[in-house]
Each structure stands twice: as structure tokens, then as C-alpha cells.
């Protein structure tokens, strides 16, 4: 083109016109990455496609961990169930199975989360947020008519995994071989509990570590289809971590756990493929998609760099995702359905293996059957009406998404290297570093909301008077059923062989001092002898230390 000086090239012309018309205040995502207004081949030109992107099911797994992704198998639609008594759980779970769910996601009552039997807590608190299961008899009722080998069991069962022990005894009773059981110990990542979710934190740091190692060894030996450890970024992000921090800290924990097992003499290829991940999905849509793509790539790279792992099966970053409870609003609650849909979409476009969508009433109640149904139907709409699952990793090749994926990987690597400098995740958590970083991010985010730099619809913008909102009443367990459960526990305790229970608990206590005994095997034996959940946790707390995050921390909160 002959150039008389008036003709600009298109990029320069756009730059000039952009500068004239745009709002030029800088924009950042939640991880603090500055976002450009436009991404072009000058940001990502595809020249590193083979090294950084590749094909689904191949290194570095950016596009997905399986070759066929959702064309082979869609993500599993997991819903959490937990309310009231074992009878309530069983009724609701059977309904869920009848509507096509193949997974059981068991949420115990808060008293169980804290390691107590119901007779140790105020009846007012029993069964309000989860199901109270204390004994083998309770577990029989909860799982009545459910074929244990046919469902995937999501056990929200923190260390020392007493509920799984009850399931194992029940399986033995029914003649279901342990090898047939599939599922996940969803709440085995005690570091995440120590730093960001104290309700699940039961034993001291060292005690939790011993139990986890023996749990991994036990399941590797007897339960080849069981995932003994899900490493959880969800707690941290819900507590305030940015998506990049949540990814970095979670991978740091994962590296710590792999190292723990390797140092105990295990071959990484015997267990790493059964480690899974669990992440939160915030409203920051593209950032979340990039977080998941970056997570897959980074995990495969870290395992190769640090442990020399080459087996493709071990390099797969399998994860479950849950929409964000803290992003839900109490104000105008039906708006939450839109939020959940956006977050669910991000997880699907990010290639999740499994998804939980929150019910819209979770900002003020335990979900009702109706709100839970809407949440699952949101997934069905995404999956079967919208066509978003038709093409694998459909955002790949977007200049923006690829650049953001690179930047999220870089940010997460920075987090991991700071944790490395502190001696790894166990020490970084004990020193209070992780908690303090998460706290800072939580404060910064809240400040942005307060200054209306971050819009929350219905909260700091487009508010309506309270009375125009509709909120269903909270669900409560039937007090008569709760009272009956107290009676059942009393009868159960009276009807067992006290000598066998005493001996089994004594053996469990002894196992804590003897590394030759697998602690988890001793725990399953105690469950078989008739020990209750609370008795098993108490025995281990006495020997291994009661987990008190505020006292164990070495730094300042």
C-alpha cells in the first residue's frame, strides 16, 4: 500500500480509537492479573501449541485428561445430601438414585464432623446440617437397599475416616468385596482443614498425617478403586484465597502428600492416580476456566519435575468442582440460580470430572428438595440443552484464554515457590503463612465490595426492599426421630460386647505408638467390634492430640 502517512495499520488504528473511547481504568481479575482490553496473536501465537496445549488425554493435559472427554463420559452430577437421621438420608438418597444420580455424596451432621457421637452434643444441633451416623446400625439404615458396589461413594468423612470404616464393615456383612467399592475420601486433606475449614479438623497436624498415610497404604492394599485423598482448594477459596492462590496452595499440599508417601517407601505409580482434587468455582468466569486448564498442565509438569513420574495415568489431574457458597446472596435469592449456572458453565468449560451445583437457598438454609432439584436441573440444562459439552475444550485457542492459562500457571508457580521456601506446605501451614495470605485476600475482596469496586447484584447494586424477596422456611429434622436416634444409640451401646469393644479400642490406641501396625486397619477392626464413631475419634484424640488450629499455629493470626 502506498502510504501518505494518513493510513494506519489496523492494530494501530484500533489502539488509537480504543484510547479515544474506552474507560481506561485498569481491570484486574480476582488473582490480581491485569486484564488487557483485547488479546491478539501478539499475546499468544500458538507457536508453543505442542508443548503447552497438545491434545486431550495427552501431555500436558491442558485440553483435558481423557481423549474423548465429555464425548466419552460426561462429568458426574454429584449432589450433597445430608439432613436429619439415617432414615431421612436413606429416603432422599434413594430418590436421587431414581432420578439418575450414580453417586452418593454423604454429608454428616456437624456433631459427626467434630468427631462426636450425638450423646456428646446438644440435641438442638443434631441433624440440622447433615446426617447423624454414629454406629454400624445407623450405617445399615442409611445404606439400606443401596448396593454398595454399584454406586460411587463420596464420603465427607475427615480423618480418621470412621464412616468409611463403618461402610467397610457393612460391606463385609453383606458379602460385598472391598475391591468393588469405589469412591473418595473427600475430606482427607487435613492441611486444608487446618488452614481454612476448622470444622473438619479433628486430630493434631502430626496425628492427622499418621492416619492419612496409613489410610493411603490400607486402601492401596485392599481397595484399588478407592481414592483415599482428595486435595481441596475449595475450602481455601471459600475462606478468601484468590483462584491462583487456591490452585498454588492446593498443589503445594498435593506435592507434600506425594512426598510423604514416597518417603514411606511407596511407589508413586501405585497411588498418585488415586489422588483427586476438589475446587471452588467463583463468579470470575474466564479466570476459573483458565485455573482449571492451568491446574491440569501444572500438576503433570510438577509430578515430572519433582518425582520423575512418567506413567500417563498418574499425571491426570482429576477434579471435582463446586459452585461457590460465598458468592450466593441472601438478598433476592432467586438470582443465585443465574450465578450457579455461570459457575457451573465455567467448570464444564474447564473440563471438570464431577460437579456439584449449589441450591439457591444455601445463603440462608439447608437446601429443600425443590431447591436441590433446581440445582441438578441446572446441570441437566447445561449438559443437554445448551450444547456446551459437544466439543472438547471449546475455548482453546482463544488468545485471551491461552494467555490467561499461562498467567494463572505462572501465578500458581509463584505461590508454590514461596511455600517451598518455607519448607513445604505442612510447615507453611503450621507457621500461619497460608492462613495469613488467605486472610489478606479475604479482606481485600471485602474492601472492594464495600467500595462497590466489585458489584454484587442485590447487595451493593440494584438492591430491593427486604419484603420483596421470598425465602422459604428452614428445614428441621423431626424432633421425634432425633429423640428415637438417641434411644437407638443407647440401646446399641448397651447391647454390644463391651469386652470386645474395649479390647479393639485398646489395640487402636496401641497402634498409635507402633508404626508396624496400620492404624486404619486397627480402626476398621474397632468398628467391626462395635465401637462408635465418637469412641474411635476420642481414642485417637487422646493419643495423637486434639486438633486445635488456634493453638497449634506457630505464627500469629
Amino acid at each position, binding site marked *: 500500500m502506498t502510504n501518505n502517512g494518513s493510513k494506519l495499520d489496523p492494530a494501530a488504528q484500533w489502539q488509537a480509537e480504543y484510547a479515544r473511547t474506552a474507560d481506561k481504568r485498569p481491570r484486574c481479575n480476582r488473582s490480581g492479573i491485569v486484564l488487557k482490553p483485547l488479546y491478539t496473536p501478539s499475546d499468544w501465537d500458538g507457536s508453543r501449541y505442542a508443548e503447552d496445549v497438545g491434545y486431550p488425554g495427552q501431555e500436558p493435559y491442558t485440553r483435558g485428561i481423557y481423549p474423548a472427554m465429555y464425548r466419552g463420559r460426561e462429568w458426574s452430577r454429584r449432589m450433597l445430601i445430608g439432613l436429619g437421621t439415617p432414615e431421612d438420608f436413606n429416603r432422599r438418597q434413594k430418590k436421587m438414585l431414581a432420578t439418575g444420580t450414580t453417586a452418593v455424596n454423604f454429608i454428616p451432621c456437624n456433631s459427626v464432623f467434630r468427631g462426636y457421637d450425638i450423646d456428646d452434643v446438644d440435641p438442638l444441633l443434631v441433624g440440622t446440617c447433615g446426617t447423624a451416623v454414629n454406629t454400624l446400625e445407623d450405617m445399615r439404615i442409611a445404606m439400606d437397599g443401596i448396593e454398595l458396589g454399584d454406586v460411587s461413594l463420596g464420603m465427607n468423612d475427615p480423618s480418621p475416616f470412621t464412616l468409611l470404616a463403618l461402610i467397610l464393615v457393612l460391606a463385609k456383612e453383606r458379602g460385598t468385596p472391598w475391591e468393588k467399592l469405589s469412591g473418595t475420601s473427600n475430606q482427607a486433606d487435613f492441611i486444608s482443614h487446618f488452614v481454612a475449614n476448622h470444622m473438619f479438623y479433628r486430630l493434631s497436624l502430626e496425628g492427622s498425617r499418621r492416619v492419612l498415610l496409613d489410610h493411603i497404604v490400607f486402601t492401596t492394599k485392599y481397595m484399588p478403586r478407592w481414592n483415599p485423598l482428595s486435595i481441596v482448594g475449595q475450602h481455601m477459596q471459600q475462606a478468601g484465597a484468590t483462584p491462583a492462590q487456591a490452585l498454588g496452595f492446593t498443589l503445594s499440599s498435593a506435592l507434600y502428600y506425594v512426598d510423604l508417601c514416597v518417603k514411606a517407601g511407596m511407589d508413586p505409580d501405585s497411588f498418585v492416580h488415586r489422588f483427586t482434587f476438589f475446587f471452588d468455582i467463583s463468579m470470575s468466569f474466564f479466570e476459573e476456566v483458565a485455573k482449571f486448564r492451568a491446574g491440569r498442565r501444572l500438576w503433570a509438569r510438577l509430578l515430572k519435575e519433582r518425582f520423575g513420574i512418567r506413567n500417563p495415568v498418574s499425571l491426570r489431574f482429576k477434579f471435582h468442582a463446586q459452585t461457590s457458597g460465598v458468592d450466593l446472596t441472601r438478598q433476592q435469592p432467586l438470582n443465585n440460580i443465574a450465578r450457579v449456572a455461570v459457575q457451573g458453565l465455567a467448570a464444564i468449560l474447564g473440563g471438570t470430572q464431577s460437579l456439584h451445583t449449589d441450591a439457591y437457598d444455601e445463603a440462608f438454609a439447608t437446601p429443600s428438595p425443590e431447591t436441590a432439584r433446581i440445582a441438578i436441573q441446572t446441570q441437566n440444562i447445561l449438559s443437554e440443552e445448551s450444547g456446551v459439552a459437544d466439543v472438547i475444550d471449546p475455548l482453546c485457542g482463544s488468545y485471551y484464554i491461552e494467555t490467561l492459562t499461562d498467567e494463572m500457571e505462572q501465578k500458581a508457580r509463584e505461590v508454590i515457590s514461596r511455600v517451598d521456601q518455607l519448607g513445604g506446605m505442612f510447615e507453611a501451614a503450621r507457621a500461619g503463612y497460608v492462613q495469613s495470605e488467605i486472610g489478606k485476600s*479475604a*479482606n481485600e475482596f471485602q474492601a472492594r465490595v464495600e467500595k462497590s469496586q466489585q458489584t454484587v447484584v442485590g447487595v451493593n447494586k440494584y438492591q430491593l426492599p427486604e419484603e420483596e424477596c421470598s425465602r422459604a422456611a428452614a428445614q428441621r429434622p423431626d424432633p421425634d426421630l432425633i429423640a428415637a436416634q438417641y434411644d437407638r444409640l443407647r440401646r446399641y451401646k448397651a447391647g454390644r460386647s463391651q469386652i470386645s469393644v474395649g479390647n479393639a479400642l485398646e489395640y487402636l490406641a496401641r497402634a498409635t505408638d507402633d508404626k508396624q501396625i496400620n492404624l486404619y486397619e486397627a480402626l476398621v477392626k474397632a468398628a467391626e467390634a462395635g465401637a462408635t464413631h465418637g469412641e474411635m475419634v476420642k481414642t485417637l484424640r487422646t493419643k495423637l492430640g486434639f486438633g486445635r488450629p488456634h493453638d497449634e499455629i506457630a505464627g500469629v493470626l
Partner: protein
Amino acid sequence: MDSSLKIRVLLTKIGLDGHDRGYRLVATALRDAGMEVILTGPWLKIEEVVSIAGQEDVEVIGISSLSGDHLLIPKLMSSLRAAGMADVLVIVGGIVPDDDVPPLEQSGVARVFHPGTSLGEIITFIQSRVAMQRLARE
């Protein structure tokens, strides 16, 4: 009472839950607003709350409840009254179903702050209520 005296606040959790993002945020905001904040860990027993509140001579107790523990608050209120601390301002923050608010208020809770409340609103509420109480005591 000297109105320039710093307001002393006990922020705590009772019962079983451990979610702590909320009350840690509130603690930071109250400190930034010039208050003395005693922040405890979770799972305190009601007797422990009463005893710390007495020892620390607080004018305000904030209870954070995210998962059902608010049901114990009426018991806390009677224990405070029994210990002669009926004048301590008790506020609650977190997830409290609508139906549960009136019983809490009837038991003497000054205010339940729901999700989405601005930190500024909590600060203003505490400052104005404490100022009124101090005037009333003079």
C-alpha cells in the same frame, strides 16, 4: 463512663461449626474502627464465653454462626443474665434462617446481621448502641 474509652468486643463462635472467614473480617474492621477486639477460636462452650466476657470486661459480644449453632444463643443469653451481664450488647452474624430471628431477638440479642451486611453498618450499630448504653449508665 468515659465516652472516649475504647469499645471492647468479644468475637467468638459457639457450638460445632468452624467457618471463620466472617468473624475474622469483622474483627479486622472493628479494630480498624478503633475498637479492642478479643477474637477466640471456634467451639467455645457457653460457660467459656460468659467467663471470657467477664474477665475481659467487654461491652459487646459478637457470635458468628454459619451452620446452626445460633440455636444455642438463647442458652447463652440466660447464662449472661445469670452472671449479672444482662447489659452486654450481644450481636449475631452469619447464616440465620428468617424464622429463627424472632426467637433470638426475644432472648435479648440486639441484632442479627445477615450475609451481605456492610462492615460499616456493623461498626455504626455497635458505636451508637454502646454510646447509648454508656449515657444510660451515667
